[in-house]
Structure formats: structure tokens, C-alpha cells
């Protein structure tokens, strides 16, 4: 044996069964004759095992996370917590009695009030009041609008293109690359209409993904997100919804996954049957359990009723590929999903402040 390098290479070839019978025998002979060599080989085999154990466990953890994200945690929880079941049973048994008792009480209350004349002189006052209130509202509204336009106006020239984006972590936002491509400046506007200055952190042309960061100091970074970005693929017929800005305010849209490939068989995308408009692109595609499964891309004019979305696994790949020196703050993806088991309405309400309008401006027209 010439050197340790050689010995290690031999040992590895031996381990992988790549040696000829002759070499094999010679190697075994060498180990037998020289205890120091044998010791080295044994140590190396042990270290190789540690490395492969590490790899296996890493994979196991990733698989477990993946499987966990597909479980309906809320319903499992319900099935194992006995207290809630008892309350439900009680409610089912006694709700009629409760309803009758409540309506008798209400009836008694109303008839007493009517009898004592509490209702009689009200009408004109009420109308007056509501008129008054309306005027005040209108004034306040006007004031708010003028203050807002003073505070948060973007640059003077109008946005060349607008789309949607959604929060990833802290002050990072995911959106479509085509929305911010070639932009000089990017503004991100929340569901309350407040807009913040942002910058493009990373773009990935293959998957049409861009990662933005809100740089405006007035923006309060998110500490938690209600959704989880799914690692595994979803299949056709899965119910999905999206929230986006096809116009100036947030719009909800629902549909279903229609194919597990995108335009011209693109395996990085889903085909989605959902009613979307150009402003929706960059928005999140969310399944029933509240997992983000994709990022909406522009719809193909040639195919009616079909939109496409980049699969979440490729969004995650793009995020992984961000060089760490272009991140000023840590980008830590949410591991929790607090949307599962909620009704659509509740899901939307929890979600809406995490979905933004992305406005890109460029000086050249």
C-alpha cells in the first residue's frame, strides 16, 4: 500500500464490492497481516456508517414532515379529545329545549317593552341619526383618503404592471418573476391599502419565481404565518382557492387542480381550473387544509378557463437557492399551519393580511 489515500480507496471499493476476486483476496490478506491497517479500515467503515446513518435519518425526518403536513390535525385532535364530544352530545340533545326557552324569554321581553311604550317615539330620531352618522362617515372617509394619499403615494408615474404576492417569513414576499422583471422600483400594498417600498432579493427564471423583501421601516415583519408551504405534490381534482388582486381590492377565487402538469407538459407547474385574471399572478394557490401548494402564473390566452401555477416544491427549491449573503434577515419558513380544519370563510379571514398587491414601476415605457 502506497499511502492512506490508496488504502481508503481500496477499502471503499471493497465495501462496495467493486474489487476483482484477486484484489479482494490481496486486500483481506493485507488486513490480516497488518493490525494497524486493519484498525484504520475498521475505523473508516465505522465513519462511513455514521455518515450513511446521518443521511438516512435526514431523509426520515424530511419524509415525516412531509407526511405530517398532509394530516388533518384538527380532526385527529377532535377524535381523541373526549370533552368536546360530550359537549356536542349535550348540545344535540338539548338544543330544542334551549331554543324554546330562549324564544319565550325574547317574546316576553319584547311584549313588555311594547306595552310600556318604549318603541313609540323613535322613528324620526332614528332616521335623523343615521343620516347624521352617514355624513360623519363620509367626512372621515374623505379625510382618511387625503391623509393616505399624502402618506403612502408611490412614485409619480403609474405602475407598469401589477400582480399579487404572499408572505413567506418576516418581511419576505413571494411573487411571479414576470411581475417585477425589469422594474426600477417595487411597491407592496397590503389589504388595507397601505403601500411599502420593497426590493427584489432573488429571481428564478426557470420557475418564474421572484422573492421580494419589504424594506420600508414602517412595515411590521410577521412573526408567524398561518400557512405552510407543501413539499410534496398534489394531484388532480384537489379543491383549491386563491386570493389576489385582479383589481384594486382583494378578490377570492376558487377552483380545482385539473392536471399535474402545466403548459405544454411543463412538470414544474399545475394546470388549475380557476377564475383568475392577470393581476392574480404571483398569488398563493391553497388547498383545503390551508397548505400553499402553488404560485399562480399568468393564464394562457389560448386556453379558456385554464390557469397555471408553479408547484410549491419548485418554489421551495428557488428559496433554497437564494445565496445567503443576499438575505439581510433570516428567511425561516413556517412549519405550522393554523388554517386546517377551519371553514373557507375563516381561512380567508386569517389569510387576507398575508396576501399583497405587488406594483412594479419602471421609468422606461
Amino acid at each position, binding site marked *: 500500500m502506497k499511502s492512506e489515500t490508496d488504502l481508503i480507496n481500496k477499502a471503499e471499493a471493497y465495501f462496495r464490492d467493486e474489487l476483482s476476486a484477486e484484489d479482494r483476496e490481496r486486500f483481506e490478506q493485507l488486513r490480516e497481516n497488518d493490525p494497524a491497517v486493519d484498525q484504520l479500515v475498521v475505523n473508516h467503515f465505522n465513519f462511513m456508517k455514521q455518515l450513511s*446513518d446521518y443521511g438516512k435519518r435526514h431523509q*426520515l425526518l424530511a419524509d415525516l414532515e412531509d407526511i405530517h403536513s398532509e394530516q388533518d390535525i384538527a380532526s385527529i385532535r377532535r377524535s381523541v379529545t373526549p370533552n368536546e364530544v360530550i359537549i356536542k352530545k349535550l348540545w344535540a340533545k338539548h338544543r330544542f329545549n334551549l331554543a324554546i326557552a330562549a324564544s319565550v324569554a325574547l317574546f316576553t321581553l319584547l311584549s313588555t317593552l311594547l306595552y310600556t311604550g318604549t318603541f313609540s317615539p323613535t322613528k324620526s330620531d332614528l332616521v335623523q341619526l343615521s343620516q347624521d352618522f352617514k355624513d360623519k362617515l363620509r367626512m372621515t372617509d374623505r379625510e382618511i383618503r387625503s391623509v393616505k394619499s399624502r402618506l403612502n403615494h408611490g412614485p409619480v408615474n403609474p405602475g407598469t404592471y401589477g400582480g399579487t404576492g404572499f408572505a413567506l417569513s418576516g418581511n419576505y414576499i413571494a411573487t411571479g418573476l414576470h411581475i417585477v422583471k425589469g422594474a426600477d422600483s417595487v411597491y407592496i400594498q397590503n389589504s388595507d391599502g397601505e403601500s411599502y417600498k420593497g426590493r427584489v432579493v432573488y429571481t428564478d427564471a426557470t420557475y418564474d419565481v421572484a422573492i421580494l423583501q419589504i424594506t420600508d421601516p414602517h412595515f411590521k415583519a410577521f412573526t408567524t404565518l398561518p400557512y405552510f408551504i407543501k413539499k410534496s405534490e398534489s394531484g388532480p381534482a384537489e379543491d383549491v382557492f386563491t386570493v389576489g388582486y385582479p383589481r384594486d381590492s382583494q378578490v377570492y377565487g376558487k377552483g380545482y387542480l385539473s392536471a399535474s402538469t402545466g403548459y405544454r407538459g411543463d412538470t414544474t407547474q399545475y394546470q388549475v381550473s380557476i377564475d383568475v385574471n392577470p393581476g392574480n399572478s404571483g398569488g398563493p394557490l391553497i388547498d383545503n387544509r390551508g397548505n400553499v401548494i402553488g404560485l399562480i402564473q399568468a393564464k394562457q390566452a389560448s386556453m379558456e378557463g385554464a390557469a397555471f401555477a408553479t408547484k410549491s416544491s419548485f418554489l421551495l427549491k428557488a428559496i433554497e437557492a437564494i445565496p445567503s449573503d443576499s438575505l439581510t434577515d433570516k428567511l425561516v419558513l413556517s412549519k405550522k399551519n393554523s388554517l386546517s380544519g377551519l371553514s373557507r370563510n375563516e381561512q380567508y379571514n386569517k389569510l387576507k393580511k398575508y396576501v399583497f398587491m405587488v406594483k412594479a414601476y419602471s421609468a422606461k415605457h
Partner: protein
Amino acid sequence: MVKNEIKKPGPTDSDFVFGLLNGSKETLNELYKAYFPMVMQLVITNNGDEDDAKDIFQETVIVLYNKVQQGNFELSSKLKTFIYSVARRLWLKKLTLLARKSGSIRDFEDILPVEQDLEQHEEKDEQFRMMGLALGKLGEPCKTIIEDFYIHNNSMQDICEKFGYTNADNAKNQKYKCLQRLKKLFFQV
């Protein structure tokens, strides 16, 4: 006969063990379906929440996985009892650490003595953590070369092509240097 047709039996204990031996993801999925609710019940009725249940269950699966991979899982004990006992022990330990409650727990299954398994698990856990740290410090391209060869079992030829080495000997030398650095980092931390 009719009964058998109606009630489709889930995987048996030995199905689970063989599946875990082969690293089958389908088995993991079945394992989740079959036993996660039990662990969730244990954790939630004993001052825990859903996230605690998730952590405890995943750690339990790792303990089981290591035991099966080492080939010393005896089918004489029921898999369910084993999982319950490990999860219970892990949760007790976490409760004591958090000082939420100590010593007692509300049980609803039989318990096996699993202390030895957990000692081994802690040792492995430490090694896993240290290997992660060492690989993290190793830097590129070493990290990928090492992972490709020793974890993904790629051939030297593949690595040679992937990294554009002009011949296999250069790649081997580079891999050897990386390996020495990794060993140094691993045994040092």
C-alpha cells in the same frame, strides 16, 4: 368469510417492521395513520399541545426506526405497546424539563421498559447533531462531494462528471481531502 371481506385489515406489526427496514415511505404514512392519534391523545391529555404531539411522535418513530435498522426489534412485544411506551417516556422527560408537571402521567395503554432504547437514542441523537454541524462547517464543494459519495452512494465517475474533474484520480484526491477535513471537524466538536 364475509367478515373478512368487509373489514380490510391494516398492516400487521411485521408489515411495519419490514417496511421500515426497507425505508418505505408508504409504511411511514401508514404508521402515521395508525399511531399518531394515540400519541396525540397521550400528549394532549397530559398538558401538551398539537406541536408537542408532532415532535414526540416523530422522535418516537426515529427510535423505532433505529431499533429496527439494528435488527433487534422483537416481535414478541406489540408494536403499539412499544410506540406508546417510548412516546410516554419522551413526553415525561419533556414535561420534567419544562417543569410543567413531574413524575406522573395519565395512562391508557400498557407500558414496556424502554430505558435502554432511549439511552441508545440519545447517543445517536448526539452523533446526528454533531455530523450535521460538521457537514455544515465543511463548505462547498466538499459537502456535496461527501454527501454524493457516502450518503447517496453515487459512483466516483458521476461525481467526476458533476464537478468537472479531468480525471477520476483528481476527484478521488479531492474527496480524500474533504473526508479528512470532515473527520477533523466531526471529532473536534
